[in-house]
Structures are given as structure tokens and as C-alpha cells.
């Protein structure tokens, strides 16, 4: 059986069923997937258990998903989150 994948900023990321998006990204050496809304600093997993909200990521167009909690699914479209993740809203 072939390994499932999800896309991350256009690349295909393999994962094992039951892994979180954050765990799958870590396994392939991706360390950060968010830039802070103030200084634009990179962030990734910190607490790893849903407490710190540092690992926020966009999943299927939905921002502020916790990468450490959200289970990876085949065909999911995952992308880096810039700032609030709501840049699509009209200001």
C-alpha cells in the first residue's frame, strides 16, 4: 500500500495515518510554518500538545488550526500561515 500524502505549500508531504500535520512536517525536517503578525518571526511546534498555539497553520483554507492536534489526511491542502491567517478579509 502506498503511503498517503498531503500538500504543504505545493510540496507533497508523506505521513503515516494517525500522525498530526505538525508531526508529519517535523518528520521531513520542516521546522516552521507560521510567521508572527508583529515581527514576522518563524514559528513551529513548541508545546506539541495543543496548549501554546504557536504551531498555527492553514488547513484547507482554514487558518489558525493547531498543527500539533490536527490529524493529517490524504489530499489535505496545508499552507504556511502569515500573521493572523485572515489576510483574505477586506480591510
Amino acid at each position, binding site marked *: 500500500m502506498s503511503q498517503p500524502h498531503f500538500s504543504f505549500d505545493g510540496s507533497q508531504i508523506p505521513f503515516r495515518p494517525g500522525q498530526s500535520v505538525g508531526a508529519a512536517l517535523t518528520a521531513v525536517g520542516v521546522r516552521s510554518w507560521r510567521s508572527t*503578525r508583529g515581527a514576522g518571526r518563524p514559528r513551529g511546534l513548541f508545546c506539541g500538545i495543543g496548549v501554546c498555539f504557536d504551531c498555527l497553520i492553514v488547513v484547507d483554507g*482554514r487558518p*489558525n488550526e493547531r498543527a500539533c492536534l490536527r490529524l493529517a489526511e490524504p489530499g489535505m491542502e496545508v499552507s504556511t500561515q502569515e*500573521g*493572523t491567517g*485572515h*489576510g483574505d*478579509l*477586506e*480591510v
Partner: protein
Amino acid sequence: MPDVVIVGAGIVGAACAYYAAREGLSVTVLERGNLAGGTTSRGEGNILVSDKEPGPELNLALASRTRWRELAAEFGPDPFELEEKGGLVVATSDPGAAALTRFAEGQRATGVETVAVSADQLHDHEPNLAPDLPAGVLYPQDMQVQPVRAAVSLLAAARSLGATVACGEEVVAAERGPDGRVTAVRTRTGRYPTDAVVNAAGTWGGQVGERLGAPIPILPRRGFILVTEPLPRVVRHKVYSADYVENVASDVAGLETSTVVEGTQGGTVLIGASRERVGFDDTMSVEVLRRLAALAVRLFPFLADVRLMRTYHGFRPYCPDHLPVIGADPRVRGMFHACGHEGAGIGLAPATGRLISQMLTDGQPDIDPSAFAPSRFAQVTTG
């Protein structure tokens, strides 16, 4: 010996302290808890004219708005985060639109700037509003400050003029001389001789009045605010539905909710407003949150996909006739009240502080304070 002791270091106490110190009075502020730790820290920092019908409170609000701008010019706008963002009141039904238009006409006659906004213009002002709203009125004079910063800055300015601010000092009683005049205020741990005392204890003003021998009818009216996750500046004005105007002036004890939505400099969107007379009940009400969320989504549909991050609640100091109590108490010489501003304390604070300082120095008041006199309550004149 101080000329005046001010009880309460919320926004109204801070404004009283600042203006009294500027008049050259020797000022001591006594605060039971921490600076700006009561209702001041539980609101959005509104400085509104839009929600007030013509009458004494609107006059006070217009005067106070001018004072806020003066203060910003004096202190620099940064310490307060003063933002002249304007208010946009929207009707959600055709009869509501007609009522709003009439209300705005009355306000305009008193000197409030109002701009009628038709259905097709609403989105020029607020691009994310629901598509089906019939009309609105823009109030360019509505403003906002960061209330804790504002109170803290006023207190710091008062201190630099010689005022003393003491936290953790809970007032328990007043001492009076043979002529009945206040001579000192006692706290749990200390005694502060003074010629005058100002009750600026906000929602707890009734209690403090009683301890000082001059009870006044102030009751808590609970309100919840929902705070969203950080967003870009997707809501430009303070936006509220026209039914807010009715609720503010209502006497109903049960839960009333209207929609108030606004963005903040921190990025969060704040959603109010609920009004309940449930005493000082501190427990969370999911039903209130649910209603506020539903109303906010009705006005701004994009909010359905935005997450609620926290809530907070506070207790507005509420008088039976919805007017603040500002002035000398006829029962105790040297005793003044400056409380009961309901949800408008931030906006009304500077004008209140000015009035109190003018009363303390026997100066000419800026505006007619008679509607706010404590003697309007039967319990004050007969007690």
C-alpha cells in the same frame, strides 16, 4: 492635609484627581484594589455621542468629548490610544431604519454630527457588513480610548501635579466635625484628614456612599464582551445595531442583547453588548454568549468562521434614571458624588472630573449640572 480625598482609581476618579490637582488642590486618591481594576478595565473604552438622546447626558458627552481631545493634545494621543474612529449605527429592519433616522435628527439639533448612510453606501464604510441592511447613520464624533491606559495616564499626570495615589486602601467611614462637615476618611488601615471627599467608586458607589453616610441608588448591570482571535482591521468603526439605543435606556431587569462590533488596535474584534440586572453574579452565561455571537454574525457574516478567544464581563454602575450622579450631597457637607455613569464612564469622565473640580473650588460649572444632582433621589432628600 489634603483638600480632597477621591475614593476610587477608575477612570472617573482619575479624571477627578487630574482636574482637581490642576486647580491646585491637594489630592489623595484611595483605591481598594488596583488602578483601573474595576469597570474601567471591563469595557471597550467608548467615547460616544451616538447612543445618547438629546438631554443632559448628551450635553455632558459632547463637553467630555471636547475634553478628551484636549487631553490627547496635551498628553499626546499615544498614552491613551485615542482613536477618532467614528460610530456606524445600522438598522436591521425598515421600521428600525425610520426610527433611527428620527433619532438622529433629534441629535443633530443638539449639535451631534450625523451622516445618513443609504443601503448601497454602507459597504463603502464597512466592507464586511451583511449585504441586506436597509440603512445606517455615521457618527464621526464617536471615539475610543484604551481605558486602562487612559486612567493610568490621568493618575500619573495628577501625581506629577502633587497628588497621592494609594492602592489597597478600602474606605470604611467618614469622620465629621461638630458642624457636620467631613473632617477625615478612615480606611481599614489608615486615616486621611480632609476637607472634602469624592465618591468615585463606580459600580460600588452605592456601597461607598453608605459607608460615608450618604447612600445613593447605584446598581450593577452585568455585561459580557466576546473577544475574537486577532484579525486584520476588518471592522473600521464602532458598529452597532439601532436597537442598542433602546436597550441602554431600558428598565427591563432580564437579559437584553444588542449588537456592538468593533475592531481594536490589538487586532481582536470585540462583540457586545448584553445588559442584565443580576447583582454581582460572576458566573459565565453561555446563553448570553450564544446570543451575542448570533447577533454579531447577523451583522458581519464573516465572523461565523472567526474564533472566539476569550470573554470578559463587568458590572456597569446603573442609576434608576440612567443619569450619573455628579455633585454635592446635601446630607453630608464636604461630600461629593461622581459615579453611576452606567456604560458611559470612559466617555463622560473628563467632563465629570472638570465639574467636580469646579464644585470643589466654587468655580463656575462648564455645563448645567442640575440634572445630575444627588438631590434628585428621594432617598437623598428625605434621608
